[in-house]
């Protein structure tokens, strides 16, 4: 995504929110050659620009970073492609997405990492691959972390499955520590969640569905945090954290100054297990929607700084994988186009979390988790990745109009507040709302 020879852009009059730079004020921003050229109070930028964006009344933020998306390539182009998935990302204000390796085949070699990053894939936003932690993500032999990192992998994970073995996880964290590479864990004790399709609680009992106890997540997070505390310089990132007990372990690790981070999805801060209703498979994902108490704990942790990032876990599936019996339906929902609006509607308006904090959860927070230099903040010289949104605009999300190839969202028809008005990647305007 080279910015050379792209027209320069002056973003004028917008309310600039950059948590890393601690700026929360009206500013003009000049983007040139794919980088941030100048930031200054209104009317002070004298350099000429090829293009101007009037951002009055809008929030101008560093480009959003999503630490957790499934773009389904290689091998599952019927669910999503890098072209359609990154188009959905751009529409949702994301300028950088980190892709999960549970594709067909699994991204467990440097060649596949290179393949994902190749311009031939047609990505319109930055795609940063996360590689598999074990070969074929089978939980056995570790992959070649160093080679994967050299090829451009920003982290390793066996997402979709946990790294279950104590020794395997210990070795992964140790190797990650040597390379300064985060290990991302899908925390689920799969020994007790076999054939389960939702959270254990009154709703699963009522619906007669085999269910996943909150403890299945909590025990793995607890173990991983303990390991991260023991292994110097190791970096543990807890993916899609969904339970109150898991948060306690993350807090413990953070207090002990271990390098432990976590992300939360919009659906886990918005919905609870009861919303599954009468077997609606668009409310089936893993980790499952949890109890009201878990959601409350997540809201607190989003507000108090325990959570490092909002990540979508965008998981597109074809209709025929969702229009089946609940127990047989694929886990996962799309999320790139609704994330910001849900954050503003639920976190900012309902729960009074300041916009500055919300922007942090989409920008500098995730950038810190994977140590993404030059992103997550619009300091001079950084990548010209910018997200401009209207925090007051009301709109209705229509799944049928999604840029994603798939339609598996629980938010179809939802009235939301907060809309992405423009997405700029490497100084190029990719998306503009009318």
């Amino acid at each position, binding site marked *: 995504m080279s910015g050379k020879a792209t027209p320069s852009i002056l973003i004028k009059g917008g309310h600039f929110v950059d948590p890393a730079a601690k700026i929360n004020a009206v500013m003009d921003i000049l983007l040139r050659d794919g980088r941030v050229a100048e930031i200054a109070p209104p009317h002070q930028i004298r350099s000429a620009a090829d293009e101007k964006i009037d951002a009055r009344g809008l929030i101008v933020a560093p480009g959003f970073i999503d630490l957790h998306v499934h773009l389904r390539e290689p091998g599952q182009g019927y669910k999503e492609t890098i072209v359609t998935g990154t188009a959905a990302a751009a529409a949702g204000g994301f300028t950088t997405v980190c892709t999960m390796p549970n594709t067909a085949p699994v991204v467990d070699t440097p060649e596949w990492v290179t393949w994902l990053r190749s311009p031939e894939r047609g990505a319109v936003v930055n795609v940063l691959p996360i590689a598999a932690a074990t070969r074929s993500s089978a939980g056995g032999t570790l992959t070649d972390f160093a080679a994967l990192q050299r090829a451009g992998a920003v982290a390793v994970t066996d997402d979709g499955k946990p790294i279950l073995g104590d020794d395997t996880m210990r070795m992964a964290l140790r190797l990650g520590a040597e390379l300064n590479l985060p290990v991302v864990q899908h925390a689920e004790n799969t020994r007790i969640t*076999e*054939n389960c399709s939702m959270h*254990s*609680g*009154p709703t699963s*009992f*009522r*619906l*007669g*569905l*085999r269910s996943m106890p909150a403890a299945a997540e909590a025990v793995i997070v607890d173990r991983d945090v303990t390991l991260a505390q023991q292994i110097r310089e190791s970096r543990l990132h807890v993916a899609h954290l969904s339970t109150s007990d898991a948060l306690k372990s993350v807090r413990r690790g953070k207090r002990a100054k271990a390098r432990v981070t976590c992300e939360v999805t919009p659906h886990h801060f918005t919905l609870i297990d009861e919303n599954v209703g*009468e*077997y*609606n498979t668009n409310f089936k994902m893993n980790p499952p929607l949890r109890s009201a108490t878990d959601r409350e704990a997540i809201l607190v942790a989003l507000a108090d700084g325990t959570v490092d990032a909002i990540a979508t876990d965008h998981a597109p599936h074809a209709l*025929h994988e969702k*229009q*089946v*019996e*609940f*127990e*047989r339906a694929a886990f996962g929902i799309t999320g790139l186009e609704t994330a910001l609006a849900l954050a503003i509607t639920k976190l900012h308006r309902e729960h009074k979390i300041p916009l500055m904090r919300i922007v942090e959860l989409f920008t500098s927070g995730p950038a810190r988790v994977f140590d993404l230099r030059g992103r997550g903040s619009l300091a001079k010289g950084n990548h010209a990745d910018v997200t401009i949104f209207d925090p007051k605009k009301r709109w209705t999300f229509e799944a049928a109009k999604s840029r994603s190839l798939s339609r598996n969202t629980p938010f179809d028809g939802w009235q939301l507040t907060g809309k992405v008005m423009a997405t700029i990647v490497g100084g190029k305007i990719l998306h503009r709302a009318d």
Partner: protein
Amino acid sequence: MNKPARGSLLGIEHLEAKEILGLLKLARRMNPQKPRPLLRGKRVVLLFYEASTRTRSSFEIAAKSLAGMTVLVQSSGSSIEKGESVLDTGYTLRAVGADCIVMRHPSAGAPHLMASHLDIPVINAGDGMHEHPSQALLDAFTILKHKRSFQGLRVAIIGDILHSRVARSSCHLLSKFGVNITLCGPPEFVPDLAATLAPGVRLTRHIEDALRGTDVIMLLRVQKERLAGQKIRLQDYIARYQMTTARLKLAKRDAIVMHPGPIIRGLELTSEIADGPQSVIVDEVHNGVPTRMAILARAMGKAK
């Protein structure tokens, strides 16, 4: 996703008490010995993905007693074996002219999936561990034949509640009429969550506690096929929870013993109980036919 067609019966939970009473009243007017041609010209497909004796045969006899035509489709010997999805099977049955689908399936919610995509009524004949509404209705029908009303009634349900669709449906039904329901069994079968199912439901681990002063005893089969991963010793279960003549004396003198079947003699109950004077187990099966006649008549808009 659409709303289920009128006349569908997917579960008891979302029925109103007056709809239940309406069905029971209709069932009392149904007599398989005196056929009424309410389903003349109607094609009822019995779509069974799981084994069944009672439910299947009584739905078939019920439909035929109302002059309906029945077609049995089972997973083995049909395109289901070749991997056809539930919905495609539904569309196929609709296209060959089904007017109603009676469906049993091992996955909870499968009839809901079918009903939300078809424009004909779907009747749930048992879905996984979820509901078995026709069984709960015929059990209510049976209870009301032996007891004056639901008023002040105490019902003990003993056994594998966790895996039982009958228990879920019966709890919902009885709870709507203010019945005091006691669920009894070991934690593996009766988790604490079971008490959240409906108002008026309490739990006990002691069969003596469950039986004392009760009007109705509903026993459940220990479902070995659903015991995946569960550690429970049958000998312990028999010692603590088997229904015996001695234990039955704790209940009211006129208490009735029910069981949705199939019964496993020597496990959840002794032969003396199964064949004893207080057992209404055979009567339940018998009542299945008029109850299902009522369900089918309602499904076809003939609930007159």
